[in-house]
């Protein structure tokens, strides 16, 4: 194989409070398909954003060589001019423009600002043939399925004379048939000399198309494995992905597990727009009081969707399923109903869904249970302040006063505010979705202690997390999810990172094979 088309050397990138990448090296040979694997948060997307200029030169350390030349991209346009094109998991197409308009968006066939439709359409038709998409260039994007939209994205990349194509989770939203077609196309492009980086959680796909695979973990390169003609075993990749040291400290606790408290049975949810897709498919789980139960799963496994749907049907369209509390079926059709039954959901997205960032700490904490500091509909500001003040102390929220706007707090302190809000609501069941995402180690340890305390008080706690050591350190029992299904249930004593990862990467296709 020819020399490297891309070399990224000692790339480091920090965000306030977090080191996202540390001395990462990546070498992609010309004309190969190079896979990048790693858990959620391992730094895959950050690395690609560095490469494509989303994070401009100067905001990271290290150097990038493309076709042997050092590159200093100041934005996406600069990297695209060199022939590096990234296709994100969330497609960047304008739904109400045609295929042809989208393919050449920002890159129009035009002279003096006037678009030549003739050239646009003929070129678009040519590109569509190349990617094997049998649609008129006039078709609106909104009328295409996700699989075909993905092909339009690739045609758009080709229009930019792509040399290195980066695909971030390209098949996450695709069905088997579309996935197969897409992978074939990647191999076809490779034959035409286009190099490709593919980020994927689906190990069987990597085994099928990739020539080599680089594994990232906690922002560091673990290893690069060349895949020979004999292929690679999924276990080999998993070993690299999860071999993380258990560095965080987890509170010592002796669980006092009581009665069955919270049960979800046969829960199914349809995608809000694409009604054919079952985002959650017949999921059942239960939590006892005093127990901490984890849900492990990779991006797109349907964990958050399951939790939000159970919590007042806040995601997608409910298709089937029941919720029971202490053995009695309860209605959780709306959020107030769910809260009324003592369920709390701490969202993974605290900025968008957890906090009112323009309001202060005290008013954020009281929001979901204002009735507790009010009489006859009148909020007692003094009482509210007192409550917030006591949470500020017990949760160690680092802010000058409870009148500090939550938007100015660090991630860890914001998370403590959100947790305070839900603890104040006095729930019996807490669903914590990625409770420690994006926060520093100190705050993480504090939050683990809070979670352990909640369980000790007899609450049923369900923790969704992408960090396997966290689940292993915290939970009494762990469920795994993949593609909307519960694929396993493991007691803490029997769980290892490897065994969980195997269950988490079990696709419907491969699980069928096993049966």
């Amino acid at each position, binding site marked *: 194989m020819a020399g490297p088309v891309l070399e990224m050397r000692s790339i480091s990138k920090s965000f306030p409070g977090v080191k996202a990448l540390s001395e990462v090296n990546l070498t992609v040979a010309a004309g190969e398909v190079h896979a990048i694997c790693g858990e959620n948060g391992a730094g895959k997307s950050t690395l690609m954003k560095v490469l494509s200029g989303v994070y401009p030169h100067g905001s990271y350390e290290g150097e990038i060589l493309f076709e042997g030349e050092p590159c200093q991209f100041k934005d996406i346009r600069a990297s695209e001019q060199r022939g590096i094109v990234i296709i994100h998991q969330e497609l960047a197409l304008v739904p109400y423009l045609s295929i042809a308009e989208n393919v050449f968006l920002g890159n129009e066939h035009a002279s003096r600002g006037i678009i030549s439709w003739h050239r646009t359409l003929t070129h678009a038709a040519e590109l569509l043939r190349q990617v094997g998409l049998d649609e008129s260039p006039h078709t609106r994007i909104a009328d295409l399925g996700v699989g075909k939209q993905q092909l339009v994205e690739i045609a758009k990349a080709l229009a930019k004379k792509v040399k290195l194509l980066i695909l971030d989770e390209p098949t996450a939203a695709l069905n088997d048939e579309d996935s197969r077609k897409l992978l074939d196309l990647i191999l076809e492009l490779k034959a035409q000399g286009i190099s490709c980086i593919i980020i994927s959680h689906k190990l069987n796909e990597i085994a099928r198309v990739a020539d080599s695979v680089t594994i990232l973990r906690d922002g560091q390169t673990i290893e690069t494995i060349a895949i020979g003609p004999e292929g690679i075993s999924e276990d080999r990749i998993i070993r690299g992905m999860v071999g993380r040291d258990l560095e965080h400290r987890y509170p010592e606790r002796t669980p006092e597990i009581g009665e069955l408290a919270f049960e979800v049975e046969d829960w199914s949810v349809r995608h809000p727009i694409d009604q054919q897709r079952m985002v959650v498919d017949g999921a059942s789980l239960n939590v006892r009081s005093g127990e901490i139960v984890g849900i492990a799963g990779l991006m797109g496994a349907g964990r958050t969707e399951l939790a939000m749907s159970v*919590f*007042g049907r*806040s995601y997608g369209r409910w298709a089937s399923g029941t919720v029971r509390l202490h053995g009695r079926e309860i209605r959780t059709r709306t*959020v*107030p109903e*769910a*809260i009324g039954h003592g369920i709390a*959901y701490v*969202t993974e997205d605290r900025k*968008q*869904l*957890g*906090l*009112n*960032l*323009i*309001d202060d700490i005290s*008013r954020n904490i*009281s*929001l*979901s249970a*204002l*009735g507790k500091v*009010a009489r006859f*509909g*009148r*909020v007692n*500001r*003094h*009482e509210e*302040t*007192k409550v917030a*003040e006591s949470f500020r102390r017990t949760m160690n929220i680092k802010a*000058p*006063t*409870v*009148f500090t*706007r939550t*938007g*100015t707090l660090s991630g860890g302190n914001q998370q403590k505010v959100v947790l305070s*809000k839900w603890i104040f609501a006095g729930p019996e069941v807490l669903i914590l979705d990625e409770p420690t995402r994006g926060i520093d180690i100190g705050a993480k340890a504090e939050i683990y202690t809070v979670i352990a305390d909640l369980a000790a008080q007899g609450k049923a706690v369900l923790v969704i997390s992408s960090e396997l050591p966290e689940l292993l350190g915290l939970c009494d029992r762990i469920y795994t999810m993949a593609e909307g299904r519960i694929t396993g249930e493991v007691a803490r004593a029997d769980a290892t990172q490897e065994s969980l990862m195997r269950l988490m990467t079990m696709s419907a296709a491969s699980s069928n094979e096993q049966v």
Partner: protein
Amino acid sequence: MAQTETTPDSSPMAPQADPGPSLGGVLARALRGNVRQYGMLVALALIVVLFQIWTDGILLQPLNITNLIQQNGYILILAIGMMIVIIAGHIDLSVGSLAAFVGAAAAVMMVKQHLPWPVAMVIALVIGALAGAWQGFWIAYLGIPSFIVTLAGMLLFRGGTQILLQGQSVAPFPKGFQSISSGFLPEVGPRTNYHNLTLLLGLAVLAVAILQEVRGRRQTVSYGLEPLPIALFLTKLAVITTAVVAFTMLLASYHGVPIVLLILGALLVGFGYLMRNSIIGRHTYAIGGNEPAAKLSGVKSKRVVFLAFVNMGVLAALAGLVFAARLNAGTPQAGINFELEAIAAAFIGGASASGGVGTVMGAIIGGLVLGVLNNGMSLVGVGTDYQQVIKGLVLLAAVGFDVYNKRRAGS
């Protein structure tokens, strides 16, 4: 009366992190986060002083102050409702037309059908509530943008007005009805040089205001929170006292308190309290600040938004009645551009275009800034053409200043 209302962040429970902070530090902290509203209060004071000098003292003459209140009453009523709608993250373009429609309906009921005027007023307010419910239904429950729904409402109610009145003004109204706009508090007791009841009312307002402040301070202490330093607290009481006394004397030396001011004062106190202290008020802020987060916290956002529009409808109706009473006629041309004045008042008074921010007091301050500008410029002989230009620039400057401030604060 307006001066007795305190804003939430100036309440004596302004917190302190460290013991014994400097006076300036406390002041700065009490003011922070509310720069725009305090800024506008200062701006209002400056504008008043400026025009007071420019008009050789005419501006603050009792007659002119009374005029000012009566001329701007209906805009201020609208601004209160508009502020709440904007806090919830919406907008209402229909209020001018709705005010006209309700005024027209009241005119038809009183003049043509000879209904007693109190009955007509109640029916008119119900019509306003129904119109608000109609719009709130489309916005809250069907998810149609409020801009579109109320733009439709603007046309709808304007057309309805013309249909009701058949293109003609309907007049005159009974005396009792006219007094809601041009009437005054009745006079009692011996003849003095001042309006007795107004003096008594001013005294009562002052007593209640000081009592509230003292009680608030005592509560703050009883909850173990640190109150405002005593010096600052006394200064605050002195300012309140001076303002109430001065304003009372001013009004009492003419005809006394206009009825409109009583209505406005009641609305200001009522809605100020509602937005500050009630659960539904708090929910309104939460929805405007982050609707998805509010929903996931169990806030029934649809109902709250619906009610905000019902309330706007009622207030638009009230404004329509006051305006009709002032004109002593229901006319097809009533209420034109009222929505723009009300929206401008809300934004000048500290609302945020993205919702979640603002106070009822702010709407009043914003409305007064516009009102004093109008009145002052007319007094010194600036034509309406230039008045519009200046008001436009003031709106832009007020919001621009705020955006600049926020950006500098890094938020």
